[in-house]
Structure formats: structure tokens, C-alpha cells
């Protein structure tokens, strides 16, 4: 059950980052390419599957825990806090899908809607169970991480190699996102890991360390783009655009690995409750 929940959580996070971050890219950088627009529509479809999967798996888990029938769980689940926020997420996704289907999407409005829609996810999870401050910081982490990764996906899916203008705008967006992602992530780590010993001695702590290692590699590639490839592209060096695009593709792959580890953290026993 936990493996399935982690898998669905990974699908959810990947599609969420692609959609919300892609909308931020469309609003702040450039109109998505044909492949980029297809990625946004695919993310909506994957989110429909992820939301259905999460509802089914949660129903099965509640049936097992409470020892009641699936029918009773289906009646009770929508009335719980998790269920109400699930409905908000589903309705929000329907609104985003409708606005995305317009002939000429209004990207700034869609990006703002996408950012607000992420709030429901943050309030639905671990952080949301611990009050508005923890949920809002989780939202900042999710919003900034999505803007970063979703923009990279759009840059990688461009019809041509990135232009200097687009690269500079994505660089500014990624830098701003980084300024939020890292402190908000450290705050979340303090919130969930009670001691340094538990960071190294528990599966949760080790998965968090693995995630940090991949994030460090991602930051290294981001720095390579920031300080070398983007300035070279601005200087008009012919080979820079190809190098930038290749690095961005590797960054996207690492970003997907970070999301897998994030989904795993959502189902592992918390550090304070783990008994070796």
C-alpha cells in the first residue's frame, strides 16, 4: 500500500510541478511551444489519474484501519478535512483545465490560479495538519519548486534551442525560486527531524539526505547554466544554446528524482516514531 501511495504521490508531484511551473513559465518567460502546451495538457490528465488514485488508495486504507465497509468510508471520507481539500483540488483542477482549453489562454491569470490551487495540496498533507504557518511554508516550497522545475521542462521542450531572452528570464525565475525553495525546505526539515542522530539513523532521515544530495547536484548544474552557459548565450557564442539545452534536460531528470524522494518521504515513518 505504501509503495502504491508513494508512486501515486510521485505522479501527483511531477504533474503538479509541470502544470503550475509551466503556467509560471508561460506568464513570466514566453508562450509555451507546441510540445510545451501538450505537456501542460498531459499534466492535467495525469493529475486526474493521481487524484482518483489517491482517493481510491485512501478509501482502502481507511477501510482497513477503521474496520468498516468501503461504502461507509465513501460516505465519510468526503466529510473529512482531507476529503474536503481533495474536492477543492479536483474542482480547482477542473477550472484550470477549462481555462487552459481556451483559444487564447490568459497566462498571468492561469499562473495565479495555479499558485492558489497549490495551497489546497499544502493544507491537505503533513504540513497542513500542523497549522497555517507550516502549511504556508510548505506552499512556498511547493510553489517555488514547481516554478523552477516546470520552467525547466518548458525550456527543454522548446521547438528550437533557447534564445538569450528566454534563458535570462528563466535564470531570473530559477534564482527567485531558489531563494524560497532552500530556506523553506530547511524549515520543513527542522519541523520533521527532531535530532541530527535521527537524520542519519532513520529511513526518513536517509531519504531526506538522498534528496539533499540530488538537490546539490541540481544546484551545481543550475550554477553552470547561471554563470557559464547563459552568459555565453548572451555573448552570442554558437555552441552555448545546445549546451544549455542539454544541461536543462539533465536538470529535469534530476528534478524528477527529487520528486520521487519527496513522495517517498510522504509515506515513510516519521523520524521520532521509527523503531529499529
Amino acid at each position, binding site marked *: 500500500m505504501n509503495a502504491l501511495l508513494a508512486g501515486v504521490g510521485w505522479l501527483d508531484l511531477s504533474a503538479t510541478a509541470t502544470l503550475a511551473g509551466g503556467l509560471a513559465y508561460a506568464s513570466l518567460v514566453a508562450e509555451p511551444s507546441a510540445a510545451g502546451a501538450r505537456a501542460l495538457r498531459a499534466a492535467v490528465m495525469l493529475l486526474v489519474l493521481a487524484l482518483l488514485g489517491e482517493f481510491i488508495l485512501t478509501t482502502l486504507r481507511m477501510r482497513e484501519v477503521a474496520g468498516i465497509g468501503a461504502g461507509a468510508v465513501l460516505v465519510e471520507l468526503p466529510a473529512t478535512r482531507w476529503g474536503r481539500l481533495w474536492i477543492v483540488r479536483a474542482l480547482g483542477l477542473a477550472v484550470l483545465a477549462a481555462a487552459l482549453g481556451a483559444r487564447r489562454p490568459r497566462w498571468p491569470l492561469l499562473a495565479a490560479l495555479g499558485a492558489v490551487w497549490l495551497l489546497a495540496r499544502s493544507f*491537505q498533507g503533513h504540513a497542513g495538519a500542523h497549522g497555517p504557518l507550516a502549511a504556508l511554508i510548505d506552499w512556498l516550497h511547493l510553489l517555488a519548486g514547481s516554478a523552477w522545475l516546470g520552467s525547466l521542462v518548458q525550456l527543454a521542450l522548446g521547438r528550437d534551442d533557447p534564445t538569450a531572452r528566454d534563458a535570462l528570464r528563466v535564470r531570473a525565475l530559477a534564482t527567485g525560486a531558489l531563494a*524560497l525553495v532552500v530556506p523553506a525546505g530547511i524549515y520543513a526539515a527542522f519541523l*520533521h527531524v527532531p535530532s541530527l542522530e535521527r537524520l542519519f539513523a532513520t529511513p526518513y532521515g536517509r531519504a531526506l539526505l538522498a534528496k539533499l544530495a540530488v538537490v546539490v547536484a541540481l544546484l551545481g548544474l543550475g550554477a553552470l547554466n547561471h554563470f557559464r552557459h547563459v552568459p555565453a548565450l548572451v555573448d552570442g557564442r554558437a555552441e552555448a544554446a545546445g549546451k544549455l539545452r542539454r544541461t536543462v534536460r539533465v536538470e529535469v531528470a534530476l528534478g524528477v528524482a527529487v520528486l520521487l524522494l519527496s513522495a517517498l518521504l510522504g509515506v515513510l515513518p516519521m523520524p521520532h516514531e521509527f523503531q529499529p
Partner: protein
Amino acid sequence: MSWRVPIWVMLVGLLLLRPPPIHAHAFLDHAEPRVGSSVDSPPSAVQLHFTEPIEPAFCRLEVMDAAGKRVDTPAPEHPAPDVLRVALPSLAPGEYTVHWAVVSVDTHPTEGHFTFSVKKPRS
């Protein structure tokens, strides 16, 4: 870029506050009768206090006697977001085990059990 400065100042300030660790799942904080205690007179109810709010619809609370037979109780009540309570019939002296299974508001399940005893009345 100047607009980054206030964001960094705000978030570094947030980190300096360093939040206390949270449990993220609902665990038993304390119970009445107390875990492992011996009480002089039969309690009228068992009340469990958890470390965070729970979803009452998916919570279970059962009391077993020393022979493993379930004590007949009404459905558990939920007098506060983090409290589960079940009224008890008049218990005979002996040891009782309370089994609980709860779900936190983010749907993470936890379970556990503890014992308490009702002393024989002094003659």
C-alpha cells in the same frame, strides 16, 4: 537583484525561529485512566488524548478484559479534536487492555494499546 533581499531576510528570519519538531502522525499523549495505572474504583470512561487532531469517523477504541473478552461499550465519542472517549459499564476488578487505532487529519493511521487495572475493593 534588490527584490531578492527582502525574501532572503524574511526566510532567514524564519529559519532563525527554528520550529519545534512536530509528530506529523497522531500518537497517544496521555490517557485517563493513566497508562499502566491501577485505579481504586472502576472508571466511568476511558479517555485518550492524542498529539494532534484525529478523524473520528475512522477511529477505533476497544477495551478487553484479562480473558481477552471485549467489554461491551457504546460508540466512541469525540469531545475535542484530539480526544477520543468511550463510556464504560461497571468494570469488575482485574486488568484491562485498551486497543486504539486512529487516523490523523492528513489520513495517516497509527495504533497502539495499553493496560490499566481496577483494584479489588478493600473489605
